[in-house]
């Protein structure tokens, strides 16, 4: 329980070097791209040149006759499979069937002896299309004469992750709608002393995990085995089980090291396609996408938000209303959950008595959108935190003081029906403000702001684990959580070593093999430390309970006479460590004890969210008024993490997330012109580089042990991203007096806004007779 505020930690709460350090700096860490199976073939994908078209015919005879080609797989070759997948909505065919819905959609795959041969054979596949009218924005998708992307009715996925219904497949292009409402918004806005209102746009972005999507499938009569760069192997297993109509026990997902995820590798991606290739080619097949292809696989939902926020005469926020339209692309993927989350995340982390948020995502003929770090939250934190500053300015309050006055308090049930707030925003804000020198003089053209984020995180609490304590006193954690770089292979052994009272180096981790490791729903939503960490802690305690019973048996005493001590047990004068207990029990220096735990939505995890993920960021920026270019002078991150199991890793998550958020605030944006993605390569998609590093950075953690996780820990690593775009927009306003309601704030956008402002200023001077 979080009430148990242990502080005398031996291993936990220390910045122990990463468990995967040595393999990663020597090049020995294995990613799926590095794996090869004997007899393995290689697949390459033919993609649609059209955004929306009927497939009239596919002639693959020439390609199949090409030397070195084993087979060509198309949507017409999938008899015997259930070719549609999707954990939320089963709308996604593993290869286009009858029609294509976005430029870049997989239409056929060549399986050949090597990658180059497969690639060469692609050009011999002849596809005849009949082009259809496409829709590319929510507005176009909602138009009366809009063509329909999906004609089929959809099955709602059992694992969709939310309790509401699925809206998709009801004869419109609507993918999902969600609404939250409390209080009386209309009345509140009528009575308000001050109101701000505006339209905001948050762009499509690309996570750019440096390892593009890759999977190896081996489909035999024994079942389906897939090595994949997937964040959530158990969710992918569920899709594969349905596609091949197999029992769960016959589908095996193995995930080695993953080269970056950030949400983009959550849920099923290329696995169904590569499995179909293996099934057809009757051999193991590897499919390695290029970065350009990865950019045609997933992006984040872009969001058009109208929002208004009201305050009373005392500076209390009394109402917020928003209408959001999200562009989910051609397939739902995780967007229905993104819709729900972005709706909820319009509120937090403020206590607002009157709220009405309506959200609607639409299918369009663009790359499917899905999870992206903090999903849904950054999209609405741009309007949300912009309006806090806009409102503070309007009523003449300091934006930091205004936030302090309105932020949710510890223990406050600020979101009806949800877990009371479990963070300390005042301390977060104070720390961020102090770190960037709040209240000290600023140079001309500089702006300084703080912003906060509080999101309903942790996903669904369904997590299990086993901890095997061996006869030599070492232990192995069996975990379904995936090491994406976030450090789970370091943090989980820290918890086990702390609990078992053994050396950190004696704890090993086996992870993410669905045939071996117990079930864990997902590695995302910042949930691993809290949920898997709790599971590891409970499993260690259960192993200890078993070993107490074993010790009583060995010493021929009653269980009550056995007392646990660090690393073992004591009974009177006799002290045994775990190695002695196990070895004596089996009368052989070998064997093991298996501690287990099952976490479900019950007990301390009954209330959702599992925790509120809270963080503050502070920035100081300067604007070059001649070019519109923004320079990041200072950045401070404050992670409200309850307790950092490994402080260096927790801070590393925050600076990484804030840098991604800064990228979106300054320059990251996928640009469509009509049906074409114009910057679908890393040559054209601008990412943060060394030279974008803010001049001064400081990283802070707030550790009040107020989370439900081990020793009061909570998740982190997403919230620092969420507030960055708003922070930058607010700082620009304070620096040079222009309000930009769209990310990224590129030099061009800032420059145009400045020009417009100067024109207006001149105009008003003339009107004044000046």
């Amino acid at each position, binding site marked *: 329980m979080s009430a148990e505020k242990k502080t005398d930690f031996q291993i936990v709460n220390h*910045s122990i*070097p*990463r468990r*995967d*350090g*040595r*393999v*990663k*700096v*020597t*090049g*020995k*860490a*294995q*990613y799926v*791209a*590095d794996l090869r199976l004997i007899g393995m073939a290689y697949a390459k994908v033919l993609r649609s040149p059209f955004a929306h078209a009927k497939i009239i015919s596919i002639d693959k005879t020439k390609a199949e006759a090409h030397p070195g080609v084993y087979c060509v797989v198309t949507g017409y070759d999938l008899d015997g499979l259930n070719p549609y997948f999707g954990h939320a909505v089963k709308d996604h065919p593993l290869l286009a069937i009858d029609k294509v819905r976005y430029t870049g959609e997989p239409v056929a795959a060549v399986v050949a002896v090597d990658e*180059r041969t497969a690639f060469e054979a692609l050009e011999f596949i002849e596809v005849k299309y009949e082009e259809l009218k496409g829709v590319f924005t929510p507005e176009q998708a909602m138009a009366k004469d809009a063509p329909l992307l999906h004609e089929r009715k959809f099955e709602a996925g059992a694992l969709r992750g939310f309790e509401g219904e699925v809206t998709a497949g009801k004869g419109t292009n609507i993918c999902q709608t969600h609404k939250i409402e409390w209080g009386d918004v209309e009345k509140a806005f009528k009575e308000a002393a001050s109101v701000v209102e505006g339209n905001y746009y948050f762009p499509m972005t690309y*996570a*750019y*995990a*440096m*390892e*593009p999507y890759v999977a190896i499938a081996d489909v035999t009569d024994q079942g389906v085995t897939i090595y994949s760069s997937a964040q959530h192997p158990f969710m992918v297993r569920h899709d594969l089980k349905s596609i091949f109509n197999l029992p769960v026990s016959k589908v095996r997902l193995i995930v080695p*090291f*993953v*080269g*970056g*995820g*950030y949400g983009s590798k959550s849920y099923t991606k290329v696995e169904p396609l590569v499995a179909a290739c293996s099934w057809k080619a009757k051999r193991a097949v590897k499919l390695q996408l*290029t*970065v350009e292809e990865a950019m045609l696989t997933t992006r984040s939902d872009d969001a058009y938000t109208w929002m208004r926020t009201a305050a009373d005469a005392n500076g209390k926020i009394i109402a917020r209303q928003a209408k959001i339209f999200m562009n989910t692309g051609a397939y739902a993927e995780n967007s229905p959950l993104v819709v729900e989350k972005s709706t909820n995340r319009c509120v937090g982390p403020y206590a607002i008595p009157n709220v009405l948020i309506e959200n609607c995502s639409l299918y369009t003929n663009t790359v499917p959108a899905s999870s992206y770090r903090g999903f849904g939250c950054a999209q609405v934190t741009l309007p949300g935190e912009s309006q806090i500053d806009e409102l503070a300015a309007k009523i003449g309050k300091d934006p930091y003081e205004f936030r302090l006055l309105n932020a949710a308090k510890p223990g406050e049930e600020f979101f009806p029906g949800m877990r009371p707030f479990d963070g300390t925003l005042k301390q977060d804000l104070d720390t961020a403000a102090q770190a960037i020198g709040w209240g000290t003089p600023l140079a001309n053209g500089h702006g300084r702001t703080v912003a906060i984020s509080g999101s309903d995180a942790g996903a669904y609490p369904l997590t299990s684990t086993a901890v095997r304590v061996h006869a030599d006193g070492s232990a192995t954690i069996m975990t379904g959580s995936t090491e*994406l*770089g*976030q*450090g789970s292979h370091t943090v989980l052994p820290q918890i086990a070593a702390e609990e078992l009272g053994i050396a950190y180096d004696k704890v090993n981790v086996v992870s993410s093999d669905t045939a071996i490791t117990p079930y864990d729903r997902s590695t995302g939503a910042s949930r691993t430390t809290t949920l898997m960490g709790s599971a590891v802690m409970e499993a260690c305690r259960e192993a200890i309970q078993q070993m107490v019973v074993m010790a009583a048996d060995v010493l021929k005493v009653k269980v009550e006479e056995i007392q646990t001590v660090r690393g073992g047990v004591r009974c009177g004068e006799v002290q045994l460590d775990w190695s002695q207990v196990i070895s004596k029990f089996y009368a052989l220096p070998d064997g093991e004890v298996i501690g287990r735990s099952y976490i479900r939505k019950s007990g301390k995890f009954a209330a959702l969210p599992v925790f509120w993920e809270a963080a503050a960021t502070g920035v100081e920026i300067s604007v070059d008024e001649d070019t519109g270019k923004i320079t990041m002078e200072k950045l401070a991150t404050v992670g409200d993490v309850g307790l950092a199991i490994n402080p*260096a*890793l927790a801070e*590393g998550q925050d*600076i*990484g997330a*804030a*840098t*991604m958020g800064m990228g979106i605030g300054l320059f990251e944006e996928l640009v469509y012109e009509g049906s074409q993605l114009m910057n679908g*390569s*890393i*040559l054209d998609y601008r*990412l*943060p*580089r*060394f*030279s974008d*590093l803010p001049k001064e*950075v400081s*990283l802070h953690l707030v550790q009040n042990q107020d989370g439900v996780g081990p020793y009061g820990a909570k998740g982190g690593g997403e919230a620092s991203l969420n507030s960055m775009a708003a922070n930058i927009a607010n700082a620009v306003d304070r620096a040079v007096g222009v309000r930009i309601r769209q990310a990224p704030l590129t030099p061009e956008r800032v420059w145009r806004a400045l020009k417009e402002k100067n024109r207006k200023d001149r105009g008003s001077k003339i009107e004044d007779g000046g």
Partner: protein
Amino acid sequence: MHLQFTLNGKPWSVDCEPADTLAEVLRNQLNLNGTKVSCEVQVCGACTVLVDNLPVSACTYLAYEARGKSLLTVEGLEKADGTLHPIQQAFIDDFAFQCGFCTPGMIMATKALLDEIPNPTRDEIVHHMDGNICRCTGYLPIVAAIQRAAGVIAKESKK
């Protein structure tokens, strides 16, 4: 096509196609998978290796161009007794990676930098490393690791 070069201090010869990139030969033929491939257009730096002590992007550098030259990959940094190179150790000590996919290229680019400028300023680090992308760390701990490694190497060379 037959090629000979020195690789991590040892002579090697390989047969390859004229179109093979150095990354393909290293990874597919020589089983040196430490060199990672990401963007394939020479902008991310993940595949950085040293050819005659200078950093190149192995994803676009033809293996043929390496004939007769001396190559160093991430696998060549660790000493025979298992001691890590000071750059590798500094990356561990400063938590200068998360997923680790950019790390081999990042370490090789650092090697080239420190060979040229043993005690770089922060501006020099930023300038030299700007061609290497990391999506996890926000670069801050990498800058710290490079500075730490420079200090350790300077101390070692004084001994």
